């Protein structure tokens, strides 16, 4: 994920301070436990300033590991493998009443880390807590009521069908203990400095410099976790984190490293491994479809034909990005949900055809070498968040590519705040940004292309900033909302209809499948997910994936 402006600022300020020798050393001693038995592994999840204690899983500011390592969800939806749903606190689920009720079977024999038994009561309590506190209902779940029918069964009713939101309900809702949280007056502001969860690890120590999780001896999954614990570190700058990684002081990190083979792998080729998780975001040029000339598909296609994605990925995205599919779904993750004839379709680079496409659409090259039609030059401005250096580099490259086919691209760097406002209200020609999802192909398309998520120019659009509107797409999305998630073929049929439209219209211009580099060292730990055995997404960030990886790691040797 791209860091927020605040984080970039902090990082830069911290680096600047470091450069003039104001701060006294960053990170930590990074000690490596040597005994084969009981390894505390060293983790870096991107923190670049002192840790502030917050273990509230409903808070956006909770420290890494709170979600999924300390607190658990009902199910784990593997973001690295399609249709891989792993039972966690729930062992089964079933929809009823056209998707307005979710019946859950809750795992037996689970204990909270303070020894109190866990039951369906806690699950019901958590969902009612979310309903009663809109501030912690970040996904806006339409919960009516949750009840525990017996200690191992809970049932949640919703005011509308939630077939497409199972991932949010069961995969990203962190179950908290009723016996401790009933007395919390405002669960959104609670910092929960003594966390009690069901997770595989518990908090052992906390300081501004680092914090340690240790194995939960009462964990419900027998034989797990195998490592003794995890220590979370912070580094004021990317450079110091890389130095620590290269020196073998970290076992698991999610750091961008330029030229990773030279800076990291070559320092210890036997142990220094990495994995490039590239299924999280799709970088796009999103044109404002309500503004000329982007209402013309020919113009969008000409722009796409003029862009050399290989060069963009090689130069601007450090060679880590992957080729994007014109079907706007990350590959190979969602290959099964892409219509077979589109699956291997590529975004072509053909400058000559770009010009032909424009000429057929009635554009003629002017004296300045730029195409024009009815007195309007084919010139547009791309808005981009200032300081997003990879995007800015990419736009510099695109400017040159487009100029050579007679299209003028101008870049305008604006602040994050201004960018957010402009993209929502539609005050742009083109924006460069990421498309992302809540974990399902439905959500990829509904966020980007649903009429329900857009708004007229000047009003705030939810997530469909390009103002794409298409009746066939809306109908297909609606059909999926009323289809149980198990009916894969019915869902596929609707997805294929949407893909027909996208392939024909090319509403947005995909640039790359973005990448997240995850480094891990096999000196101290084993059984890390690999491309072949991708049992969980490997990102060591606060979210549903870290806990799954952590409890499956083994001490090496």
């Amino acid at each position, binding site marked *: 994920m791209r860091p927020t*402006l605040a984080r970039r*600022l902090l990082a830069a300020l911290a680096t*600047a301070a470091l450069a003039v020798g104001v701060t006294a050393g960053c990170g930590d001693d990074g000690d490596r436990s040597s005994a084969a038995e009981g390894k505390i592994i060293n983790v870096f999840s991107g923190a670049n300033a002192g840790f502030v204690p917050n273990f509230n899983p409903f808070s956006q500011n909770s420290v890494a590991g709170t979600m999924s390592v300390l607190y658990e969800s009902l199910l784990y939806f593997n973001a690295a493998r399609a249709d891989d749903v792993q039972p966690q606190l729930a062992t089964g689920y079933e929809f009823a009443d056209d998707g307005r009720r979710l019946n859950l079977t809750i795992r037996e024999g689970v204990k909270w880390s303070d020894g109190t038994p866990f039951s369906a009561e806690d699950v019901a309590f958590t969902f009612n807590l979310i309903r009663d506190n809109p501030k912690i209902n970040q996904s806006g779940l339409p919960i009516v009521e949750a009840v525990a029918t017996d200690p191992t069964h809970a049932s949640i009713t919703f005011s509308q069908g939630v077939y497409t939101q199972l991932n949010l309900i069961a995969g990203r809702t962190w179950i908290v203990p009723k016996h401790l949280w009933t007395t919390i007056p405002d669960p959104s502001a609670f910092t929960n400095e003594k966390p009690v969860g069901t997770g595989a690890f518990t908090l052992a120590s906390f300081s501004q410099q680092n914090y340690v999780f240790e194995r939960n001896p009462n964990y419900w999954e027998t034989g797990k976790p195998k490592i003794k614990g995890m220590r979370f570190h912070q580094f004021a700058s990317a*450079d110091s984190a890389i130095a620590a990684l290269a020196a073998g002081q970290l076992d698991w990190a999610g750091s961008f490293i330029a030229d990773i083979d030279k800076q990291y792998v070559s320092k210890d080729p036997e142990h220094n491994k990495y994995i490039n998780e590239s299924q999280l975001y799709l970088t796009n040029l999103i044109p404002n479809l309500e503004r000329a000339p982007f209402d013309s598909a020919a113009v969008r296609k000409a722009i796409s034909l003029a862009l050399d994605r290989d060069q963009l990925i090689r130069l601007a995205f450090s060679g880590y990005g992957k080729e994007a599919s014109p079907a706007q779904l990350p590959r190979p993750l969602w290959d099964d949900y892409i219509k077979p004839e589109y699956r291997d379709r590529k975004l072509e680079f053909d400058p000559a055809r770009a010009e032909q496409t424009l000429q057929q659409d009635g554009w003629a090259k002017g004296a300045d070498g730029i195409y024009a039609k009815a007195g309007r030059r084919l010139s547009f401005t791309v808005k981009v968040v*200032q300081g997003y*250096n990879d995007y800015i580099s990419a736009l*510099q490259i695109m400017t040159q590519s487009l100029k050579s086919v007679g299209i003028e691209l101008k870049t305008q760097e*604006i602040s*994050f705040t201004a960018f957010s406002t402009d993209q929502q209200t539609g005050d742009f020609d083109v924006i460069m940004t990421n498309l992302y999802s809540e974990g399902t192909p439905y959500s990829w398309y509904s966020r980007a292309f649903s009429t329900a998520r857009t708004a007229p120019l000047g009003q705030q659009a939810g997530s469909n900033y390009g103002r794409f509107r298409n009746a066939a797409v809306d109908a297909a999305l609606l059909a999926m909302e009323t289809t149980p998630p198990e009916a894969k073929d019915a869902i596929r049929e609707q997805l294929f209809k949407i893909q027909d439209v996208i392939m024909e219209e090319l509403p947005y211009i995909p640039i790359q499948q973005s990448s997240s580099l995850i480094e891990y060292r096999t000196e101290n730990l084993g059984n890390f997910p690999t491309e072949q055995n991708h049992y969980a997404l490997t990102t060591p960030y606060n979210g549903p994936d870290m806990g799954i990886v952590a409890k499956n790691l083994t001490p090496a040797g």
Partner: protein
Amino acid sequence: MATIETPRDVTGEVVPVVVPTRRPRWRGLLRSRKLAAGLAVVGFFAVVAVLGPLLVDDPNLVSDDRLLAPSAEHLLGTTTTGQDVFRQLVVATRGSMLVGLVVGLLATVVSVLVGVLGGYAGGHADESLSLVSNVFLVLPGLPLVVLITDYVQTRGALAIALIVSITAWAGSARVLRAQTLSLRSRDYVDAARVSGEPGWRIVTFEILPNLLPLIAAQFVFAVIGGILTEAALAFLGLGGAGSWGTMLYFAQNSQALSQGAWWWFVPPGLCIALVGAGLALINFSLDELINPRLRVARRPRRTGPA
């Protein structure tokens, strides 16, 4: 040079005051070696800023020559996107110098207006102007500028300069006000007032000329501040002027340091240091002019007429 006299004023009291016997010694200034060095450095960068961008190719031109060390083909090597660092440096010189110049001018104009007018007018006008400058003086400069930059939509050297100027004038205004207060009560000003000169004439012809060295020093000071603040902003990713700070930002984000690409971040850093040093030298020599006590006694020449 100023001399100390103890004249009697109209009431017959003896008042010790410092009165300039003649206009400041500009000629002495020209002999200062510090000034010559400072002017040479700043002049060089000014020429590069004006002419340089006309002489080099598009600095944004990418190529597959990624992260090459300096060579005959790429005088200062290339970036990770294969852009020529030398070209970038030349074009960035214009951005940085322009911001410095505009900040210097704006901050000086505002500080003269607020400081001199307030100091001369006195009373409520002075109180309120002085209050405003005191408030601006205690505002934490960089964080405020960071906040404003985040909300202002337009980018570019002028916009950045305008924002930086907001916090750059208050210190100078205070200095100028203090000096004006001292000047306005002097005899020659009183004399001018008694002889019926209008206020604007007294300010422009009696007070301002005596403030000139001070204003010049404050101007140079504001230029340094402008260049440094812009570099800081750009380094935080908030620039837009295409400046040395922007180059440093890109180098930092592409991990030039850990990749050992010194040719990417050393030149812009060095340029900032050099311009800063050049301007500081000019400022020192101006200081010496204003305050003779700072002047190092010139060693008597061993030969030649005194």
